[in-house]
Structure formats: C-alpha cells, structure tokens
C-alpha cells in the first residue's frame, strides 16, 4: 500500500449527497479479476454519454461536459470534495480502487458509509470527515477559486486552505499508523497468530459445534 503522509492537490467538488458505490464504479466493471485499471471507468455513467463496457478504450468515448471531472479546471484533481454519506451501498472495494487508480489521494466529506470508509484505509486513500459547515465553506471556495488546492498533513491531522485556514480532523490511531507507514495489516494480525490459536483451542472446547 502507498503510504500517505502529506499531500497538496487540486480539489474537485462533487456536490451531491449519498453518492453510492454503484455510481462510483458501475457493476459491469466488477467482472474484472484485477485490482487496477478502474480509473477510466470511475463515475462511468456520469462521465460518459454512452454505455461503458469493461476492456473498452475510453479515450474516444463521448464525454458529458457538465460532469465535474470532465471540466478543464479540475483536470489533475487529487482531492475529492463530497457531501453526506459518501460511498454508501455495496461493499465493492473496486470503488476505492477506481478513485485511487484515477489519481485521488483523499476524499473530504461530512460523513462516509462504514464499509467504504474502512476500505479506503486498505488502499492508501485518506477519507477525511469535516463538519457540514466546513465542507459547505470549502464548496463555496472551490467554486470561487480556480486551481483551488488543499494541503493535507496526516501526521498533524490538518487540512489547510490556500488562504491559510486550518481544519483539524480526527483519525483512529491504528489506521493513521498503517497509512503513514503503508502497512499491510495481514502481517500485523499474523504477529498475533499464537493468540488466535489459543482462542481457537478454547472455543473448540466451549462451542464444539462451530468446529465440527
């Protein structure tokens, strides 16, 4: 996993609540057996005017000029600004892979759906929760300011605007540690293999029908 420490990037605003993972990456792309290659199909049904299929070359597909990621001022965006309950719906980690493959390193929203939020941390994509008022303010600033960039400092847990305004954000200490170091948590859990075996031995006696 790519570690996350500091990042400064162009902000793309997606002004819509309850963006679901079906919208982030439609189902036909879930047929892939790979972890990469989802970037061109991120938000496929909003981004293009035709129907997309996996394996297709997207460079000549008709684009929807109104969709935010197709607008020239947001080209190269790496910070996504969104509304309440971002990433709701299905557990597909492909949604996180698509955002990450596209080039996003961070999503800022007032709230996230649980499974999506959890999946982000497995892939070096930082989800930041800021209160609704702050997010609203950021939407206004992005709209008013071309080339609007935010600086995210994970060790300091801050988001800094171009004018120097600083927002603090909370993050679970274990998740922060894993993100900063790009750690694979399977390896961390396996350090407790003896405890897992001891637990199993006890449970095998207490609830033998679960081990039959």
């Amino acid at each position, binding site marked *: 996993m790519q570690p996350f420490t500091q990042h400064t990037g162009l902000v793309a605003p997606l*002004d*819509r*609540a*309850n963006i*679901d993972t*079906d*919208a982030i990456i*439609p*189902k*036909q792309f*879930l*047929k*892939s*057996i*790979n*972890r990469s290659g989802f970037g061109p199909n991120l938000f496929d*049904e909003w981004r293009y005017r035709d*129907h997309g299929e*996996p*394996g297709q070359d997207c460079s000549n597909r008709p684009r929807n000029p109104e969709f935010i990621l197709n607008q020239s001022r947001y080209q190269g965006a790496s910070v996504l600004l969104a*509304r*309440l*309950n971002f990433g*709701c*719906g*299905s*557990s*597909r*980690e*492909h949604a*996180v892979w698509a955002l990450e493959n596209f080039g996003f390193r961070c999503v800022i929203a007032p*709230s*996230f*759906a*649980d*499974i999506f939020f*959890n*999946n982000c941390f*497995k892939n070096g994509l930082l989800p930041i929760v800021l209160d609704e008022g702050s997010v609203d303010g950021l939407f206004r600033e992005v709209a008013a300011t071309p080339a609007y960039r935010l600086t995210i400092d994970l060790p300091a847990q801050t988001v800094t605007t171009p004018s120097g305004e600083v927002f603090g954000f909370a993050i*679970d*200490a*274990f998740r922060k540690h894993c993100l900063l170091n790009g750690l694979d*948590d*399977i390896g*961390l*859990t*396996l350090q*407790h*293999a003896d*405890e*897992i075996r001891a*637990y*199993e031995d006890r*449970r095998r006696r207490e*609830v*033998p*029908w*679960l*081990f*039959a």
Partner: protein
Amino acid sequence: MAAKTLYDKLWDAHVVRTDADGTAVLYVDRHLVHEVTSPQAFEGMKLAGRQPWRRASMLAVPDHNVPTTDRRRGIDDPISRLQLDTLEANCTEFGITEFKMDDIRQGIVHVIGPEQGATLPGMTVVCGDSHTATHGAFGALAFGVGTSEVEHVMATQCLIQKKSKSMLISVDGQVSPGVTAKDLVLAIIGQIGTAGGTGYALEFAGPAIRALSMEGRMTVCNMAIEAGARAGMMAVDDITIAYLEGRPYAPKGNLWEQAVAAWQALHSDPDAVFDQIVHIDAAAIQPQVTWGTSPEMVVAVHDRIPDPTAEPDPVKRGSMEQALAYMGLKPGTPMTQISLDRIFIGSCTNGRIEDLRAAAAVIKGRKVANSVKQAMVVPGSGLVKLQAEAEGLDKVFIAAGFEWREPGCSMCLAMNADRLLPGEHCASTSNRNFEGRQGQGGCTHLVSPAMAAAAAIAGHFVDAREF
C-alpha cells in the same frame, strides 16, 4: 454481571485480543465467498505465499454473474465466464468447498448460507458483500467486508475492528394483515434514513419482529445496510431453532442439544443499554413503494410523490430533485399512477420460498398486464426453485406470463444479462434503487413480492391487499 446487548455478547465471544485504544482482533466463524469480490483476495494470498487459516470455515458460490437462463449453454459473456472460472480454479487450488453453477445447492450466497445451516446462531459471519447482515437474523454477528478484508479473513481468520455503537429498533405492536417484512424494513429506512444506522450495529426487536418467519427476518436484516448499518441482528427464539434443525451444516445429535442450550442466551438482557433506541409503530405501516434513487425515498402505496419544494434542507432538496429528474417523475403524482415496464421477483432480500408463495398467491389465476414487457421470477437458490416447483408455484407464474428462471442475483444488480433499458420502470423485490443499479438509465421501485406481483397484473402500482 452487567446487562449485555445481543451485540455485546456476540462481540465479547469473538474478541481474540483488544489494544488499549479499543482496536480488536475479532475471530470469524464463517466466511462466505462469491466470484466478484474474491479474485483479488486469492491473488493476494498467492503473491504472499499464504494458505487459508481455516478452510472449513469457508463456503464459496458463484451468484452475481451467473445466467438465469438455460445453463447448459454456459455463459456467453467471456468476462463473466472468466470470473466464474477464476473462482473455481481458486477453490480447487486452496481446497475450499464450492457449490458450482450446476449444483442444485447453488444460489445467492445469502440464501444458501442459512438454507444449508452454514449460518448458525452465535457465529460471526463475513462475506465480501454488503448484504451479509442477512445472517444476523439468526442471532449472528454478520457484516459485509471489502476485498482486502476478504483476504485478511482468509489469511488470519480474523478482522481488525473497533466496536460499533448499538441501536435498538423496536417494532412495537403488530403489522396489519397483508403488510410484509419488506414493507416493515422499508418503513424503518424511511424513518431513520439511509445513513441513520451508520456507525451502529442494529438489533431489530419487538412483537412485530418476533411474529416474522425466518424468511421475513432475513428480509429485514438484509436491508440493514440500506439504513447505513453494516450489521443488523435479531435474538434467537424457537422459530430460529425450528428453521435450522436438520439442515446439512447444522450440528447433529448431542452437539445439536448442546448448541440449542447455548443459543438460549442469544438475546439482549432486559436491562441492556443501547446507544440509541428507535420505536416503530407496526400498526401504522402500509405497503411501501420507493419513488426515488435511495431506499429512504419511500412512501406508502396510497401516497403521492413528495414535493422537494416542501423540503427545508437544501442538500436533501437537491437529492430529491436529482432523483425525480432521473426517474422522470413529478411531485404530487399518486404512486398508483406509476406504470411498470418490467417486474423482478428475486434477490437476497426476497428470493426465498415464502416470497415466491406470497407472489404466487396474488398472481394465481391472473395474467400479467399487456403493458408490462417482462415479468420474471428468479428463485434465490436451486433448492428454493425445486421446492417452488414441488408446490406448483412455477406453473402459477408461467401461466400468468412470468418467466421462471435459474437462481442467482440477476436483475438486482444486473451484472448478468438481466437488466433494464434506459427509462424503463421496474417493480423490484430487491434492495437498492440507486441510479443505474438495474441497468444504465433504469428506474427501480422497491416493493414486497406481493406488491410486485400485484403491479405485474395491474401494470401499475396497486395495494396488493385489495387484490
């Protein structure tokens, strides 16, 4: 000893270790696997040279991509076929039990787990699928995980997690006749909202829940995620135990007796404290129909489509306007005036035998309206299909003009060939009405099996109780 919620009991029984900050290593008893969210996890295992920690905990089945038409022809779509072949190759390589496409036990992962007795009370159950909360109906802690966590469970039998907050949803009183589990859960989502359960483990309780069959309970728990909660659960009672007895994976003989005795404790203690309690008045619930693109956008069948201009919250108002524009619907329209192009009866929410019986009871002796282009029934599993055929339900559906299909996820998410065309409206017994969920540009209305059946006959929404 302090009073505990059901969630407390399930959590405590599965904690291997907890760090000072509350981060726990949680043991997983049952790991259900399907073809869509597992290939990258198996690939990760191979790259790291790891073996599954406990193969016997795993049960795999292809469901999302499988065709629901004659399977002797195989799968036309080469990409879908590759995903199924990959699951089969991985299960063979790692020694994991798989119910293949031609196995009578094949079906939707959340239908077959309980049907086989592979889901048991007191278990932790995970699957790379958000509707895993279904299994919580058995007094289990069940939740969906992403692919990285699928791999984590394969490799370690555990997950790293912090405990969620707890919410009791008490459904007080009884529903009126003809109001189903689906109406009940849609009404709950309508009340608490699609993010109302975010960060919580839900427990559904109260007389109206106790009165439900296991099929109905699974329908309710299945949609916990549509209220934002990863896990939804219910206490164990005689109905739970009667459902499980004799199922292939359920314990037998002396072990069964021991298990049943232990399961008696799987309920919240009377004085248990929840972080939040929501009361729902069961008697007030009418048959529900969704009008928008989020499951919370739901009204009773006799209501009208709400007017966004009456919504004070600008973000909510914007969502409502976007939903109506996508659905091609106008505020104030009576729900009964929405005409339907297609009807879908099936899914992990409503693809069980009781659902098919309820739909068939409405349809019997009637015909699908001429204006409906397609009406299909997709049983949740091969065994559900077999049972339905033994009861003659297939003949009822076929005589009415329904297509009688092979089991799978089908048009719930339209990964296979079953899908809506742009602008088409569908009465669907599935769980999500998101934009494009059932096909790009398609418009989904979530309803119960009886309501979908009645809509098929009428060609538009009607109160199934009036049939």
